[in-house]
């Protein structure tokens, strides 16, 4: 499934995204592979067309789930939060708080921004400890086929991550684990590109410091790891 996904970018009205407009009538490819003109697909989304939103959902479901997992852990109810992200997005569109724009990548960052906000709210509610606790729940995280060392590595990495402040942890997660671009990360967090770079640098430095003190991660850092 494609992760780039966005075919219409959304402009969140309170914070205008300065993007270049796609020429009207230009052709973009939807997630299902069908070809559609950009305005038509955007209009369908604007009218809350179920097929269009389902398409968007399928395209970005995994990404949203990944972002939310970085805050909430790998929980079965993660899907409720994903639904909440799209529900919020639809509400913003239906109430004209977000409107279409021409940037094809904008929708990804916009959905990521919504996911981060929802994740923060939810994480405050449930507490940070849940991030690590959920990893310890082996049945939730690891399929039976996953090697125990990999499971242990993830558990230790998330334990370290839980010790980072949120302003470092979230950009680190979006950039290194979800592979968002720096621009998308900045948009998702609502901060400048320079701020994201600075925070990422600080997060990397801190993560490495803590990883060197952790016997499992230290082994990977010194030996290059053995999970290829």
């Amino acid at each position, binding site marked *: 499934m494609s992760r780039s996904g966005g075919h219409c970018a959304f402009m969140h009205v309170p914070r205008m995204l300065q993007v270049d407009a796609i020429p009207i009538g230009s052709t973009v490819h939807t997630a299902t592979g069908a070809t559609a003109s950009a305005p038509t697909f955007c209009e369908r989304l604007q009218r809350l067309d*179920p097929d269009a939103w389902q398409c968007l959902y399928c395209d970005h479901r995994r990404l949203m789930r990944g972002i939310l997992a970085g805050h909430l852990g790998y929980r079965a109810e993660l899907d409720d939060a994903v639904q*909440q992200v799209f529900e919020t997005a639809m509400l913003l569109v239906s109430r004209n708080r977000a409107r279409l724009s021409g940037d094809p990548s904008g929708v990804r960052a916009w959905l990521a921004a919504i996911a981060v906000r929802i994740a923060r709210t939810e994480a405050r509610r449930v507490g940070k400890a849940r991030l690590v606790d959920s990893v310890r729940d082996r049945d939730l995280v690891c*399929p039976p086929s996953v090697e125990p060392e990999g499971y242990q590595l993830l558990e230790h990495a998330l334990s370290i991550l839980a010790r980072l402040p949120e302003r470092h942890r979230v950009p680190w997660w979006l950039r290194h684990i979800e592979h968002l671009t720096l621009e998308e990360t900045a948009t998702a967090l609502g901060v400048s590109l320079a701020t994201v770079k600075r925070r990422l640098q600080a997060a990397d430095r801190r993560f490495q410091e803590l990883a060197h003190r952790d016997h499992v991660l230290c082994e990977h850092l010194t030996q290059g790891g053995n999970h290829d």
Partner: protein
Amino acid sequence: MTERAAYERLLVELARLHERAIERTLASGQPSLAPALARVRSRSVEQALDYQRFRRARRVLMPIAAIVACLGLYAYVMASRHPIAVVATPDPSIVAPRKVAVAASAVSKAADPCSTHVRAAGNQPLIDDFEDANSVVSDIERRVGFWSLFSDNVTLGDILPLTPQTRPNASRSNRYALHAKGPELRDWGAVVQVSFQPACYDASVYDGIEFSARGPGRLYVGVREVKVVPIKWGGTCEDRCYDAHQKKIDLTSQWRRYSVVWSELHQRSYDSAALDPTRVNGIAFLIQAGDTPFDLWLDDIKFVLHTTQASH
């Protein structure tokens, strides 16, 4: 392998493990967005209904608000052009100006209440003999007001008119008197009072005040000038109000007639001026907290004529 490369390798490994964990949870997830979409649509419908209600309400309320605003504006304009006039009847007891413009909006805080004062003619000194058995002062020489009892354990909103009661030794010609009775008080005491309306009464044609009273204890008979009454009650006082011109009277357990001339009344403050009887706001019979509990009878309250011999 450099440290940086090892770190990046670790990140790749973590991302791979995360991906597998996500795929694990993805299998149990909701594949459809239909429930969320249904919720959004229902909210949109509610939103639209709210807007419709708002529009309906606005359609009704806006004309009403416009009418009220127009009426208010019209009233304001009319009040400015044609002020409410208090026109005095051609009665010699009322001092000029005969026409006094008292536009409600034009009354300022510092306006002198005595610009509309009423002047006593000087031939009917009786203020009240209470034989009408009501709390309103006798309608003589355009004196208007009512008797009330106020004490330091009563809030302003609870002041009630003081109705005359049958005298202990009533006669056919003198049946009623004002009776004030109260418990021990701890602050400033109590007062039996009347305030004239309009707020300024010119009693300069008289020399003082006389009344019958019965104790026990003592009281201070006082005359309030406009300048000691707060602005909100029709006076001009802004600070240290209610310092009435007064004189102490020792009461006895028997009815006795007391007479006080203006020159015998003094304020408590050292720099007090003599009473100006042209600017009388009211009459007060004060009972200090030290003289409580009190049981006071008052009757036949009059101004003192020039010809009357002031005596105590």
